[in-house]
Each structure stands twice: as C-alpha cells, then as structure tokens.
C-alpha cells in the first residue's frame, strides 16, 4: 500500500475560474522522500492542503495511509505531520511552550517521542525560553519541524520548508529530513529551489497546476531532450544579450558563472554547433570565447520543459 496516492486530482478556485491543480496523479512509496518542485503558483500548496484534508478536490480521489482524504479525514488528521508554507507557530509563545502545546494537541508529550526529535531539539534547547517570533528563519523552521514530528507521524507533509532560509540552514534541514526518512517516515516536500532536488528520491516538476515530468532526479536529467553547451567569455552582460539573438539556439540564459545555450537535437555534431556559435559571436567582435558541451542540471531541465511558457 502506498502511503500517498493521488488520482486525477483537479482543484479550482473562485468558482472554477482559477485552475490550481490540473488532473494530477502520482503516488509516493513507503519511506520515500518525494519532492514537488516548482515556482509559486504551480499548485504545490493546493496539493498539500488536499492531502492534509484541509481542502476538498473538485475531481479525483486521493488517499493518505490508505484512508480517503474526504471521507476519513478525521483518521488522517491524527496520523500525519504537517508544516504549512507560512511559519505557523505561535510567535508569542516560547519554543518550549509551542512544543508542549502541540504535544498536548496530539495527546502526547515531549518526553514520549523525544528520540525522534532529539537531533533537532538539542539545537533548539539553548533558546527554549525564547519567544518563537524572535528566532531566526533557520531556527523557526527547525521548531516547526519539531512540532510537526512530536506525535510520531507516519507521513510528513512539508510545504516549502526552506523558503527564505539561508543556504547553510537549508542544507542542515535536508540532512535532518534524510535521517527521518531512515527511520521509516514517508516525506512529501515541496521547494522552489531547484538545487535542492538532489536530496529527494523522486521528484515531480510542476508548473501551472500540471506535472511536467516525474522521476528520479538522475533520470530526469538523462531525459533532457536538447543539447546543452556552456559558454564563457568577457563582458558577460553583453555576451548574453548577443547570444540571445542567435537564431539557431533554442535557449540562452545565465547559469552560475557561465552562459548556458541549448540547441535542438537535429543530427548536427557538437563540433558543428560549437563552430557555428563561435563564428556568430566572433563576427560580433568577441575574442576569448570558450564553448564546451555540458551536462544539464535540474534547472536546465525545467527551463527546457517550460519553454513554451516563456514570454518575451
């Protein structure tokens, strides 16, 4: 039995005018870390709210731990841990008061499930008398995770837990999630940071309520349908602008310290493509140009998959 299953879930708002989730189906395996990856407005939060029984879907069925999200909502509410996108703890209560409150909400205590939260709680302990509103972004997320874990849920829903958090805290947070996964907890997590997909077992890339692609991160990268090259040269701003006018390329954008240029796979060899681009840029007066084939990252995949959506 899969801990999370969605079948043809559709959700609209404002009497059908706004389509938030568009016929989405997927299922998550036992003790898997499954990532919903996509920008704001992709429909991630609606999916979370449907699975946590907070919203009713317009169409389709979904179940969590074998229970139907509409009919058996009460049973689901006792079994899952949920961390909404916004920081949703009481800012005027201290760290310890928040934890105690959420523990009693689930009829348990900090002591009873201390093993599960120990790793995270030791980092919070020095600040246990501090009001939650006065914690840093990273600490708030850790506290929220503790509160979501306090009743030992079998499924954990984390809606953009790392948004607005600095890179180091984000990394630590993912390490914690991996340890939880090892203890058998199934995790559905969403993020807008493309570089975080490496932490997930499987991911679904989402945009405008639809799943663009779903697989392991490696397989998604392997299924990249274009040829990608890395371009380096002087005067990056101008170089990018000029490269964008090269009509043979299907995409060109800044990526890290270099520029990524993508081409359709149409039988041309790498050398031909490189020479073509080089010639074009040299005719524009660029000299020290370096072009090499490169392996795409998830962001490149996302951009390739959403190409039709790009304006301008």
């Amino acid at each position, binding site marked *: 039995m899969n801990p999370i299953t969605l079948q043809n879930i559709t959700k609209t708002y404002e009497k059908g005018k706004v389509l938030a989730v568009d016929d989405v189906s997927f299922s998550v395996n036992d003790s898997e870390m499954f990532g919903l990856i996509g920008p704001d407005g992709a429909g991630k939060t609606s999916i979370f*709210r449907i699975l*946590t029984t*907070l919203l009713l879907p317009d169409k389709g069925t979904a179940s969590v731990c074998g229970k139907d999200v509409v009919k058996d909502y009460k049973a689901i509410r006792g079994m899952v841990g*949920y961390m*909404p996108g916004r920081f949703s703890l009481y800012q005027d209560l201290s760290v310890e008061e928040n934890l105690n409150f959420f523990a*009693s909400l689930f*009829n348990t205590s900090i002591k009873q499930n201390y093993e599960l939260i120990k790793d995270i709680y030791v980092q919070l302990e020095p600040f246990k008398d501090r009001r939650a509103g006065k914690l840093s972004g990273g600490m708030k997320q850790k506290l929220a995770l503790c509160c979501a874990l306090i009743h030992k849920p079998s499924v954990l829903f984390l809606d953009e837990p790392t948004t607005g958090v600095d890179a180091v805290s984000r990394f630590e947070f993912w390490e914690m999630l991996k340890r939880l996964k090892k203890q058998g907890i199934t995790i559905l997590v969403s993020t807008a940071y493309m570089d975080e997909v490496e932490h997930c077992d499987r991911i679904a890339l989402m945009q405008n309520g639809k799943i663009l692609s779903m697989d392991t991160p490696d397989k998604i990268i392997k299924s990249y349908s274009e040829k990608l090259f890395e371009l380096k040269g002087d005067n990056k701003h101008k170089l990018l602008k000029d490269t964008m006018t090269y009509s043979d390329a299907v995409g060109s954008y800044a990526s890290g310290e270099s520029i990524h240029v993508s081409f359709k796979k149409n039988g041309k060899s790498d050398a031909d493509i490189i020479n073509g681009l080089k010639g074009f840029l040299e005719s524009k007066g660029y000299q020290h140009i370096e072009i090499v084939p490169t392996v795409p990252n998830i962001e490149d995949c996302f951009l390739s998959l959403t190409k039709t959506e790009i304006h301008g």
Partner: protein
Amino acid sequence: MKQFINFIKKEFYHVLRDPKSLLMLFGVPIAQIVLFGFALTNEIKNSNIVIVDNAMDNASQKLIYEIRASKYFNVGQIFMNPDQMDAAFKTGKVKLALVIPKDFDNDLQHLHTAQVQIIADASDPNTATTLTNYMTSIISDYQNQLWQDGGLPYSILTQQRILYNPELAGAPNFVPGVVAMVLLLICVLMTSVSIVREKEMGTLEVLLVSPFNPFLVIFSKMVPYIVVSLINLTIILILSVYLLDLPFKGNLLLLYGESSIFIVCGLSLGLLISTLTDTQQTAMNTSFLLTMLPTMLLSGYLFPIENMPLFLRILSNIIPAKWFYIIIKSVMLKGLGIKYIWRETLILSGMTVFFLTVSLRNFKIRLQ
C-alpha cells in the same frame, strides 16, 4: 481533558502577553466608569435652584441658609407663588425647586413634623436623581440639627415630584449601560479577533490537521474571555459602589448568572463574525459595528426606547443588549428577583442558543 486545559493555558498566554489587548480589556471599562463619574459630578456642582417660601418664618429662613451654604446649589430667587416657579423651570436654567409650605415653623414646633416638596427637572434624569438626593440629605442634616438643639425629635417629610420624565425612563444610571457595552465589546471583539488571528497566522491550518476536535478549539477560546469578562464586571461593580456611591440593591449571584448568559451570547456572536471574516482588521470593524452602535442607540441605554419611532422600537427587540440592559437595571438598581425578569432572561437565553448554533454550524472544519 489535559489537551483542553493546555489549550486554555495557551489562550491566557496570548491575552497576558499582548499589552494592547490588556489595555483594551481592562483600561476601557475603567476609563468609561471614571470618565462618566467625573462628567456627572461636574455637572451637579453649583446647580441653579429656586425656592418657593410660603412660610417666610424662622425655620424656613434657617433651612434656606443651610441650602445656600452647600456647594452643590446656587440658590437664585426666592418666590412667593408657584406660578413663578413654573415659569422659571420653563426657561431651562433651573434644575430643582424646593417648596416650603405655610406654617412650616409652626408645624415643626407644635406637631414636630412638617412637609417640604422637592420638584426636579428630569429631562436629564441622572442629574435630577442626584440633586434630589443631595437636597434630601441637606434637609435631613437640618432636621438632625434641630433635634440636637431642641432635644426633641423633629421630622421633616420630603415629598418629591419629578417633572417631564416622571419614571426616569431613559438612563437612570449609566452603570448598567456601561456593563452591557463593555461585556459585549470584549466578548465579541476579542473572540472574533483571536480566531481570525489564527487564520491569518496560518496556525489554524495546523490545528485543523490534528486530531483535536475543532469545536474544542472554539470552547477553549471562550473560557479566557468568560473569565476576563467576569473580572471586568467585578471591577465595574466595585468602582460604581465605592467611587460613584451607587447603591447596589440586588442579588449578586443572580447578577453574575444573568451576565454569564449575556457573555456567552457575545462570545457566540464573536465566533459568528470570525467565521465570516478573514482578516483581523475586518473582524475588528465588524465587531465594533455590530456591538457599539446598536448597544448605544437601541438598547435604551442612552435614548429611551419609548420615544423612538415604531420601526426602531421593533428593531430594538432583536438587540441582545436591550434585554440584558433591562435585566441588569432591574437587578442592580431595583433589587428585583428572577420572578420579575424571567421573560427577559428567557429571550436572552434564546438569542444565545440561536447565535451559538448558527456560528457552530458555520465554523468550517476545512479551509475555503
């Protein structure tokens, strides 16, 4: 049960840690009572009165002298006949008149008893009551003085006549009105804002995705405000008895019981507002609109309902504060028991049950 207690504890933390809501909860009622109190005493000092002295004898002269010595009264003309007095009242400048009968001294000396008449302009009933009380107390002082001087028990009977508003209907005292308004405001405003705050902060989302019964969430939110409201009621009563010298005549237990019904009514209304609004700001505005205005205008507290147009008189019946105002006035000021107010109590209880049912039905166990 432990869950429930923890929840209530959390609600108390919220209340106690927010200086603004604390000020709102306890500052507003105290300020209202104190301000009203001062406004009243200021008005009463140096009030213009006239005296109709039909006796013109030794005793009446002495009584007039005592009245002149009091800081409350500004004795204007001494008239010889009642027509002059009527004319003086009509100018509106005179608040009270004292009529001393013929043979005042003679009656006192020989019968040891005499009558005087106090006539007050009750178009402002608060002032009329207070002035009449002051006048009565000056006269009884005078009577005691005579007794000590002469060693004989004299008694002066005062006969009061209230002009223009004989039953003092309207607002014999503002304290019951303040009680009604403060209780309603706190209950409606605080409940609606505290629930909507959880919506706005996103904490309601987490609460809903827990096995905790959503209705217990609501009830645990009500408990702290019931406690706070009862504390407030006590503060108001203490202030009005000790600071404003208001006599408390009724049964205290009955008063608290009736107030509790009204408090639950207010909390239900607050809950109803919270289910219909999404931001603290709208919740606050709606609460003000639904509590302050009707309570001030239609409960009979500031404006007598009898004098209103038919439409407003009918409308006033659906204002819970109107019924509570009648109840609390009867208990506090007239000392009446449940026998006399069971109808009002029943109506108020009915309204409470209605609001509670509607708001609980309206409360969503999911997000919209």
